[in-house]
């Protein structure tokens, strides 16, 4: 049995963190939850307990449409960031043998992050535009006659920007997992006659699962909550849950936006819960 003084000391040590989480995490969520049941008119929030915000949300066909397109963006972005991120991490972990080069190349991956998210995204506009680099390049070498219109202000552009923005979030945790793999395991497998494919499938991928899941959580939650990328890269022509929420916020319909936020939070938490079921991240870290 611990003494009372010990218990007191422990709770004292936990208090600062608890306090920070309570004020900056728990409280805002409670406020959002509460406001989502309020009523509103053109100018003010009316404290109340009404279900209309949720009723309007679930009865509108637009809600389902934007969730569908948000899932599509999240799914595609996840797939491509995973493929690219895994490949990059694999190359860094298993093909680059010098520690110095590993570090240098890893730093190279992070260089784009020295500029802001927004700038990296907007930089695609002159590249993909009707008279942009890609179109004029393709036209100059005679591959196409007319500019490809779907390059910019399209779902393609949105997914491209997401992949560009978030691949590093896959690379880092997967690379980290790979570096923890005991190399003698691979040697043993090769000695026992395993081919490269078998090593990848039966040793590396299973042991990278925690990294893959952590990276997936990053990418999926970021894409699910995004509004700037979708707005900019689709030219305002497609919407995501975040865009719809931001619209409501701009029109001062805070309770409706709060209801949106609560539903999105639940959906994202469900996705994360499923991912955590696949791999027990805490156990494997």
């Amino acid at each position: 049995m611990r003494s009372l003084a010990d218990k007191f000391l422990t709770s004292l040590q936990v208090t600062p963190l608890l306090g920070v989480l309570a004020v900056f995490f728990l409280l805002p969520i409670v406020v959002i939850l509460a406001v989502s049941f309020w009523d509103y008119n053109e100018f003010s929030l009316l404290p109340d307990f009404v279900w209309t915000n949720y009723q309007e949300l679930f009865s509108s066909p637009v809600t389902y449409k934007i969730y569908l397109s948000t899932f599509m963006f999240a799914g595609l972005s996840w797939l491509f960031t995973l493929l690219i991120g895994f490949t990059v991490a694999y190359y860094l972990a298993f093909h680059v043998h010098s520690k110095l080069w590993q570090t240098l190349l890893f730093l190279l991956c992070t260089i784009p992050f020295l500029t802001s998210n927004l700038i990296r995204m907007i930089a695609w506009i002159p590249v993909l535009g009707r008279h942009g680099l890609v179109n004029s390049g393709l036209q100059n070498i005679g591959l196409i006659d007319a500019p490809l219109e779907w390059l910019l202000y399209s779902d393609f552009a949105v997914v491209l920007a997401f992949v560009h923005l978030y691949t590093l979030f896959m690379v880092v945790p997967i690379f980290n997992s790979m570096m923890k793999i005991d190399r003698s395991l691979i040697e043993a497998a090769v000695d026992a006659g395993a081919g490269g494919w078998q090593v990848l499938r039966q040793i590396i991928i299973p042991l990278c699962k925690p990294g893959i899941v952590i990276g997936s959580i990053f990418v999926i939650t970021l894409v699910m909550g995004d509004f700037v990328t979708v707005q900019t890269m689709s030219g305002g022509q497609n919407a995501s849950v975040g865009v719809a929420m931001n619209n409501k916020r701009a029109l001062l319909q805070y309770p409706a936006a709060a209801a949106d936020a609560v539903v999105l939070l639940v959906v994202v938490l469900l996705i994360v819960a499923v991912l955590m079921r696949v791999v027990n991240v805490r156990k494997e870290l």
Partner: protein
Amino acid sequence: MTSKETGQDPTSGVSETETAVETGRRKFIKRGVAGAVGAAAYSGGFPMIWSQNIKNITLRQFGTGVSNINEIGQKVKEDLGFNLEMTALDTDTTAQRVVTQPKSFDIADIEYFTVKKVWGSGNLQPFDVSRLKYYDKIVGIFKDGKLTPDATLAQGTAPHTVGYTDSFDSKSFADSETNWYTLVPTIYNADTLGIRPDLIGRPIESWAELLNPEFKGKSSILNISSIGIMDAAMVCEAMGEIRYGDKGNMTKEEIDKTIAIFTEAKRNGQFRAFWKSFDESVNLMSSGEVVIQSMWSPAVAKVRSMGIPCVYQPLKEGYRSWGGGLGLSRNLSGLELDAAYEYINWYLSGWVGGLLMRQGYYSAAPETSKAFMSEDEWGYWFEGKAAKSDIIDPFGNKLESAGAVRDGGSFYDRMGKVACWNSVMDENRYMIRKWNEFVAS
């Protein structure tokens, strides 16, 4: 919010009182200054010669229109001696502030359709027209709605319909001119479509061209529901698809039909993008992604100043217009109220008008601005004459070369062809929902 509640002069005894609490300051001024100095000075007539205390007055102005032009604040300090603090906000926020935080401002720089929304709150006090020195110079649009005696009235929230109230305490609007102005008009303009003449290569004469399949994938509309729906209505009416009772106050059926036409066009790939900010509209146009779109006058000027041809195309159906003015907080009284009237009279006396007109907007009392513009500037911006030398905006950027003529011509040509004013509809909430569905469709 205001960062400096207090005046500038630390030597004055008033400052110390002010720093304590805002209400303290107001009480002090009402009791001490307005009672003694203010009333005495006021009896002396106009312009008023005030004591040192005027320097301690700070008027807090917020709004959408010109509240982001710091030059106005500096000039107020120079010419009138008191401080003007300006905060720029978006349209929705200004409406909310007026209704929910009436003590957070002295002067609200808002649009006429905002006044329609907020006047009922009683948080604004009307202007005593007899105290407006330049009232007779204000154009007819802000009086009986008619620019010229034989002009026809436009649809929407026309300024004169919400410009007057019956008495100091009335919360409704008057049908005709009274002695009580809800807003003192300051700035207005006529909006239309912007086009790239070099990429279109033929004359554009109608709003209907926005949905012409010839410009498939090359047109754009602004994604701000209250204004976008009006541009959409101008297009649908020009196409002959819908006849509106009042484009500024559509019925649910009219909203549904308008949105249906635009949704179909969107599905067919008519639009390259939708824009929300000034810069987006400039980029779409200058890059050639878009050749025809809803646009604002300064955005057209910006594209042109990059050396790219862009025309603010006058169209046969007319313009969609907007107007703004200054409103007074109900809380304003005493010396501060006098200062506010002083400020507003100064505002209409020409210097600000010149500043606005040289950006392509119009002043409510255009005649007074003439003295603050060169003959060439007046000719170009107001009379629609060819520029004799380069046209420079108030911030030093060259807008046009000699020989250029303003798109749409003179003031009377442009403001005389207003088809509809920006407005707030009775079915506003329904309209916003439908507009969001259109964007997400």
